[in-house]
């Protein structure tokens, strides 16, 4: 079964770039959302395997979203890759419950190997 990767970032360019890279270099289905207010609802419906989310988003921030996810047993098992341009990003991400942290700007190869690794651990 094809895996699903959900991308959530308020910056359209980042989303576009990530979609391109992931579609080209992974076998997964790619879904994206730029408005974090819609994210939780969509996540509940789509139940992706991997969530790639940015911390700094307006109204609902990345870490808030992660907490919501972890509180919901139906989707709490999701593998979360949290990214940020923020200096304190790593701390915030881990505290919120992310599995992995990526500091922007990051290498695409790094992202791809993380995703591959997640697949192995399921």
């Amino acid at each position, binding site marked *: 079964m094809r895996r699903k990767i959900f991308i959530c970032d308020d910056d359209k360019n980042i989303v576009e770039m990530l979609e*391109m890279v992931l579609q080209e270099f992974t076998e997964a289905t790619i879904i994206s959302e730029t408005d974090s207010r819609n994210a939780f609802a969509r996540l509940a419906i789509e139940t992706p395997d991997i969530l790639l989310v940015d911390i700094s988003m307006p109204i609902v921030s990345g870490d808030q979203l992660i907490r919501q996810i972890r509180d919901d047993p139906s989707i709490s098992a999701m593998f979360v890759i949290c990214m940020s341009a923020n200096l304190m990003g790593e701390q915030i991400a881990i505290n919120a419950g992310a599995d992995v942290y990526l500091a922007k700007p990051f290498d695409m190869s790094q992202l791809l190997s993380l995703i591959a690794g997640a697949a192995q651990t399921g």
Partner: protein
Amino acid sequence: MNKFSHRDIQDIHDLNNIPIVSIDSTGLITYGNSSALRLLRIEKADLGERNLFPFFKETHSGELFYQSLVTGVPAINKLANILVDEDEYHVAFSSHLIEDVNGICLIYLFFQNIAALERSENLFAKQELKFERLLIESKERQARLAAIVNTSDDAIVSKNLQGMITSWNHAAGIMFGHTEAEALGKHISLIIPPERLQEEELIINKIKNGERIEHFETMRLRKDGKQIFVSLSISPIIDETGKIIGASKIARDISRQKEFEEKLQRYTSHVETLNTMSKLVSESLEINEILQRVIDASTKIIGAGFGIFSYQPRDSIQEQQVQFAYAGRMENFEKSLRKAMADDSFNLLDLESNIKHLAKEGANIESFLSIPVISKSGDVVGQLVFGHEDENRFNEDHEKLLVGIATLANTALENATLYEEIRSLNAKKDEFIGLASHELKTPITSLKGFLQFISMRMVEGDSNKVIINKALQQTNRLSSLVGDMLDVARIETGHLPLSRSSFDVVEMVKEVIEQTQYAASSHLIAFHSEKPSYKISGDRQRLEQVVINLLNNAIKYSPEANLVKVSVLEQEGCCVLQVQDFGMGISPEQQGHIFSRFYRAADITSNISGFGIGLYISKDIVDQHKGELSVQSEIGKGAIFRVKIPH
């Protein structure tokens, strides 16, 4: 008729020291006592043989004799000259006819050698003359001294050892108000203020010891009760036997001198105060602190009950409220003041009238002093206001001093204001840098992603792939520059965090060298380590940053060379990493500057790019590890950068 015989009479005369002879009617010397025999140089055996008349030099003396012989009238102190052998004696003789019990008459003569008498008389006369002369001289001297004493402007007073006044000159009368008649015979305590009476005992004791007292400054009492400043010089009065019988005192009125001294003292203390104040305020660059220090010190110095310093600078970039500081001990006043300020009816800019208003409302201020603080541009930017419960507490001197203080304070405040502006601007700048660099990371992420996408889709022979990779390198560079800017801003605000872990320094350095060598084909990076692995505790990522920075610098600043040496060793319990290049070197002067923010070596060609903040950040990272980053270099001989980190 006499009861005695001549024999008896002569026995008596033997006892007499005065030359006495007896002669008969013919002048024959029938008797002579030892003095007479000595005088006339006659042997006792010759008595009865010699006549007295030849002894007399002049016949007229002989006649005198004869007269007395015949008349029997006694001669008294008649003068005559007698000749004994060759010697002449001037004598006075007295003669007396005595008839003894046997009826025999003899004339007794008494001689007195008056040469000695005359001599002593002369002497006496001379002495008398001398004494008279001395007396005249003494009187003249006395008169002179008296004149000096009486015309002197200084009070000259003498007293005996009991302290009774024995002389009182004209000036003393004027100085102390008592006339001579009033002062003579009174005790000296007449002019001594009660609280200083013990001085008299001290003085008398010194005088009794024969000591002088010179320029003793004290106060004495006038008849009208006023006290005056005097300088006393006192010496013992010694009589002709050398005994101390009293003291002579000269008193000089030194009130004017005292006044000058006091003025000088006040002036000096003003200068000192301003000096101290200047130091006090120059130590601070914070407006509030300066206000408080100045008002605390000046309130104390002028002895005010309270002091307020209000300040509002005009042309500052920031909109500032009026700031103020309070000092003082008038608690009730302070309460009403703060209450009035809280009520918002209080205008700090118009302290003077507001405080006067408060004063009317029973804050009990009777003395008031207000000094404006004027900026260099001539505007009134503040006020120093002082008050006191008593009247007339503040005078011109206080005002002068405070004007000086206000000027000092203004300078310090202007500096502090500028400093605060700079600090604020600096903080804003750092904030901006932080924000900007944060924002820049997002488009860099996309850029990198897109480029990597293209690169990854291309095959290894594709000429475009090479170019795309070059583009990617540049985005990496862009990314690290942005990261550096961010780090700088973080260092400034003190927020460069370290996360410690235990890692192998040798392994880390090897990795960094590998990455760097890959990008830099111009130089060979040679690595040497004492130990194959070396575990330390620190922030691996940050220390990596340091190594990368040092390596990049080494390569950048030695374009002519082709070798960079890196070594890791242990020294004094610390991990030491050295990066050595063989380039142009760094002068001692520049060595002092290279670790500061934004420093760029002046004589470097503009080919070498970069912000120059690498070393600044590296130093901060090493410092945070409690280590040392140092350089050893000479112009033309390359440089060795040394990182020393305790385990």
